[in-house]
């Protein structure tokens, strides 16, 4: 059926298929986090006073820096995709590397934050606010980690010359996933750090 078709047309179809797949997957991710957002709403309504006193204990500076770090990493991924669409493998590799470093920085800062809370005895079992804080940021951190693994795979594949202006579907898919990870944080940050 497809043998006679033009190659780029096939690539276009493959990209569309893959995109539909990743969008469906991201819908499931939204619902996965949705459960936590629902829990947040229910529990906060149950005890707003406690949520107010506890939220003051979060480190807003770290949170803000991490927001900037993650948004920047979304930009670098987007630049990388723009580059490979023009066949610039070198730029793609630099952008991917930069993204991975930013992701690592994010996790490093998160680690420092966790350490600070642990030192003060603010553990997941302390109260429902901290339970939520650890569950939400923890699940997000796992996603950051998974994203890093995907980005690293892309970097290796790019190093082996697997991508070109015509064939770079995996990069686009990874990019979409990474934007999603960024987006979740954009919701988590105000919810946990800014709304008292």
């Amino acid at each position: 059926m497809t043998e006679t078709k033009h190659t780029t047309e096939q690539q276009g179809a493959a990209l569309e298929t893959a995109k539909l797949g990743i969008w469906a997957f991201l819908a499931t991710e939204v619902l996965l986090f949705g459960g936590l957002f629902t829990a947040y709403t229910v529990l906060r309504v149950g005890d707003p006073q406690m949520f107010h006193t506890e939220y003051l204990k979060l480190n807003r500076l770290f949170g803000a820096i991490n927001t900037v770090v993650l948004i920047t990493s979304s930009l670098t991924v987007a630049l990388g995709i723009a580059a490979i669409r023009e066949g610039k493998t070198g730029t793609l590799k630099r952008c991917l590397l930069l993204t991975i470093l930013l992701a690592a920085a994010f996790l490093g800062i998160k680690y420092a934050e966790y350490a600070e809370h642990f030192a003060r005895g603010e553990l997941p079992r302390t109260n429902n606010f901290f339970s939520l804080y650890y569950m939400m940021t923890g699940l997000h951190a796992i996603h950051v980690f998974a994203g890093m693994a995907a980005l690293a795979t892309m970097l290796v594949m790019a190093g082996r010359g697997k991508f070109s202006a015509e064939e770079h579907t995996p990069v686009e898919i990874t990019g979409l996933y990474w934007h999603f990870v960024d987006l979740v944080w954009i919701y988590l940050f105000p919810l946990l750090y800014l709304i008292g």
Partner: protein
Amino acid sequence: MTELAESHTTADRGYLTEKGFRSWAYTLDHKRIGVMYLFTTLLFFFVGGMFAMLLRLKLMTPGPGLISDHTYNVFFTLHGALMIFLFIIPAIPSALGNFFIPIMIGARDVAFPRLNIISYWIFVAGIIVTLASLSSPMDTGWTFYTPYSARTGAAVTTLSLGLFLVGMSSILTGINFIVTIHRLRAPGMTWNRLPLFIWGMYATSIIQVLATPVIGITFLLLAAERLFGIGFFDPAKGGDPLLFQHFFWFYSHPVVYVMILPAMGIISEVIPVFSRKPIFGYRAIASSSLAIAFIGFLVWGHHMFVSGMSSTASVIFSFLTFFVAVPTGIKVFNWIATMYRGSITFESPMLYALTFIFLFIAGGLTGPFLGALGTNVQLHDTYFVVAHFHYTMMGGTVMGFFAGLHYWFPKMSGRMASERLARVAWWFIFIGFNVTFFTMFILGLKGMPRRWAEYPPQYQDLHIVSTVGSWVLAIGVFIMFWNFAYNLFRGRPAPANPWRGLTLEWQTSSPPQTENFAEIPVVTDWPYGYGKKDDKGSRSKE
């Protein structure tokens, strides 16, 4: 097309030709993956069934009988959890869906073959973790209600993580099907020509993709509750046990439709073929699948009428629950209208399809007793619920599954099963089923609570009847599978199209070759045009 199918000699075993463990374990062929799912899920059908037999055996006597109360709790939890999570939910979508979706839309494979095999192995990993929880078996019932599940000494954490993996596999399969149906239809296979099984599977996949993550996060939270001592569901820590129930049923009610919609899809295939008539109300059947999927998301609260939900919420959920019967009724009426004045033959697939309609109506008509607030409060957690549940799930889904197995056995194996044996099995199954479960309606109305290991002696007679029924049912199931197992090797070779169906899977050889079709078919008409060649049947607008 037909000539081509016949040119495939019987010596050629199609996709089954290649032998050896590796050729299966690493396969990217959706048909082989479907077969692997089939055997895996059937294994748990038998294990879950064995637990059911033991439960029935114990319930023959009112007092402490063969097994202790704790063992009884473990057994009914395992019966429920294994049957639901490892058999009924995955059986039709993952096994028959995987096998037939690509063939029926004229594709060579699913959209993401590699993801397909990965999701099979995630399923197996989930099963292994689930089974690891047997080290200290669950006694919570299959609903895992908190706070008990957060405190019991049983291996709830392990089981939750196992089921999380099973759910993940189900999500990936759902995504694969949605994309496959969207992107890989053969030329001419418009949405209006899609076989109704595909429509059912499409609606099913949407539910899988949108509901499963919610149970995923619920299982994660339950695990975290036990591991880290968080208290989202624990009132002592400011949590809310109702939150768990909402989460649980937000998934578990829509999943009832994951169980039933594929079965309804099978029935919609079988009825027109064995009535030799165009399906009545093609569009109504197709769109009612989507309607069921949509409304199915809005009815979870009817499981919680007596849990302490607000009465306003209860009334709303009660109303919506009645509403979901509308698209279901549309399907049933359309099937019956299809049979009206058809030349009906009663081969085994049709026999099971009719059984499906009969038992599902019985199960469906007892639904309103439970969906209505007033009677629900009376019947809540009695055997009435058990009977209703088994009539819809076993009488519905499992009979639909059996119909599908008989219908597609020749295609999948390349052999014919014995019709006579299938009939014998059917008699046992039909009689055994009704004796077992109809008795439970009466038990429930008389007030016998579900889940009790011991009970007042006045219920014993009916329990004995039910137990004897379960033996008859088990004999029937055994004969049925013996028929399949024996004829898998000894059956006479199946022609490409033994039932004279018009859907695409009958246009290729039995069993199909590795890439399904020698040449991708071009579709020019819908698959239900029986009778006159240009008879468009009930499809009025096109």
